[in-house]
């Protein structure tokens, strides 16, 4: 009698458990289904862009699908030469800008970050507060006089207005990111080096820099992405076509009267997104860390 009630109870309990686990499986399936639908909607335009760039120009808009009936590279060859200079020129210009910006940010931001994180000097707190405040300053408040300054220096239509600020640690995001990182490095390490007679510069180069490689990698990746897809400052400072970047060349496709050539425009858009996509594939780990600190523009 006793055993019977016990087993009945346990049967009821296992039934309950089963119902629960079925319920859980159903919600899990529903959840995945919902997420997959969302992902498909989000990604569809991007895939359509890539597929369309291989379609003949006249059927791009008649066909919202993703099936390629006849693949053509004509859009790529047309797009490459559609502007005044071959697209290679714009890619090289952009690469030069990106490289300069990366080097500038790495040097200037890490120097500033070491000072903020490790050194005790007058006005440190004040400067640090100012640095954080400049994170939130709209660029428009300074762009007009900056433009006047750079044009008087004869720097308009050179890369200098876009590169020199990077060597002056104006990207406060990276200073902040590196300060955060350096604070996590045990102080004993640099103190030991100091006791051995190393100066601050040696401590910085030989102790801190090698340990902050992850923060430097995050800086490289974000500088790459932001400089590659920057538009506003390039639009203002690079008005001559021989200094055009990828962003400006794409904008040229919209301006040109023969804007019916969507295929070529799509093809060059794909080319311009490719480096960003590679960053996405290979820089995931650093991207995730960077967003969490910088607030992800």
């Amino acid at each position, binding site marked *: 009698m006793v055993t019977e009630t016990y087993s009945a109870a346990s049967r009821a309990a296992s039934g309950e458990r089963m119902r629960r686990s079925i319920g859980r499986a159903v919600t899990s399936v529903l959840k995945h289904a919902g997420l997959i639908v*969302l992902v498909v909607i*989000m990604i569809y335009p991007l895939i359509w862009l890539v597929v369309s760039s291989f379609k003949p120009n006249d059927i791009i808009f008649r066909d919202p699908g993703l099936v390629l009936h006849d693949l053509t590279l004509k859009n790529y060859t047309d797009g490459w030469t559609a502007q005044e200079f071959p697209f290679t020129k714009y890619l090289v210009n952009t690469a030069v800008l990106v490289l300069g910006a990366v080097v500038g940010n790495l040097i200037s931001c890490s120097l500033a970050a070491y000072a903020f994180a490790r050194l005790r000097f007058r006005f440190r*707190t004040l400067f640090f*507060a100012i640095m954080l405040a400049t994170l939130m300053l709209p660029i428009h408040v300074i762009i007009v*006089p900056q433009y006047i300054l750079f044009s008087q220096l004869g720097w308009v239509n050179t890369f200098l207005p876009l590169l020199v600020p990077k060597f002056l640690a104006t990207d406060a995001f990276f200073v902040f990111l590196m300060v955060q990182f350096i604070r996590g490095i045990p102080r004993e390490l640099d103190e030991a080096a100091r006791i051995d007679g190393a100066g601050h510069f040696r401590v910085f180069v030989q102790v801190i820099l090698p340990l902050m490689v992850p923060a430097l990698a995050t800086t490289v990746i974000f500088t790459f992405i932001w400089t590659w897809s920057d538009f506003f400052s390039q639009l203002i400072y690079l008005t001559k076509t021989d200094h055009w970047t990828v962003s400006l060349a794409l904008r040229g496709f*919209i301006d040109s009267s023969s804007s019916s050539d969507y295929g070529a425009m799509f093809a060059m858009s794909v080319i311009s997104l490719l480096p960003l996509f590679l960053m996405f594939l290979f820089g995931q780990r650093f991207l995730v860390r960077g967003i969490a600190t910088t607030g992800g523009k």
Partner: protein
Amino acid sequence: MSSIGELRTLTKSMRQRGEKTREKMPDNKAGFLFLLPWLIGLVCITIGPMVASLYLSLTDYNLLQPPQFVGLKNYLDMFDDPRLWNSLRVTVIYVVVGVPLQLLLALGIALVLNRGMRGLAFYRSIMYLPSLLGGSVAVAVLWRQVFGSAGLVNSLLAVFGVQGPGWISSPDTALSTIILLHIWTFGSPMIIFLAGLRQIPGQYYEAAEVDGAGPARRFFEITLPLLSPVIFFNLVLQIIFAFQSFTQAFIVSGGTGGPADSTLFFTLYLYQQGFGNFNMGYASAMAWFLLLIVAAFTAVNFWLSRYWVFYEEG
């Protein structure tokens, strides 16, 4: 700690330190040397131009003749400029609609993803992709075609026999397409939310469950308060950034802010005034007006935060 949290504690500590005796500063020389590039940048690239911009806003200046001092004329002119007020309206709609919707979606998806589900890394990466690409000209170009009158959306609608409008060529819908582009890039705040959710100790939920708190109760009593600093951080920064967005509206409207100025963002109008018409004085005044508006929004945000943002140690 986030940049905003840091700024908050810093200002607090600076205020408290007032009377304390001056600390020893052993690294004065090294500190300034390491900081030299940043200091030069601060003076020449940031503060100098800010001061100059304030002065220019009181002048008439077209780059050719020297600046003419005109007092507050530019600011007064702004009041009588219907395009300026319209551009402010467009921008505020974009910010006030786009930012909360984007953050709600980011929070919702982060909550769904956070319950230790299979494929988390996959979903997280794929959903982040639009954020990474979203600022580029290429995506704005794509958007222009997707919502064009013969674009992707309409040809998909045509499959179902629906004749879609010209989303970008109509003043009623053009701004919505740009807002949608903003919402589409919800991946980066989502990643910040996910990181924040992971900081919440699991014991809190276990204890609440033992006490019989249901999922809704657990969300409102544990998740929301503990996540509120992160939500606040996102809200403040996204609003500041959204006020400055430029590329998407510029490309989608082909640089005009049209149709009928319906996508004329404040920054786009500023660009047209400053770098199209070379009204440098007027553009400077506009920039200070923008700074004032962004500062006002941020101040209101901070003021409101005391009613809903929860800081653990007070």
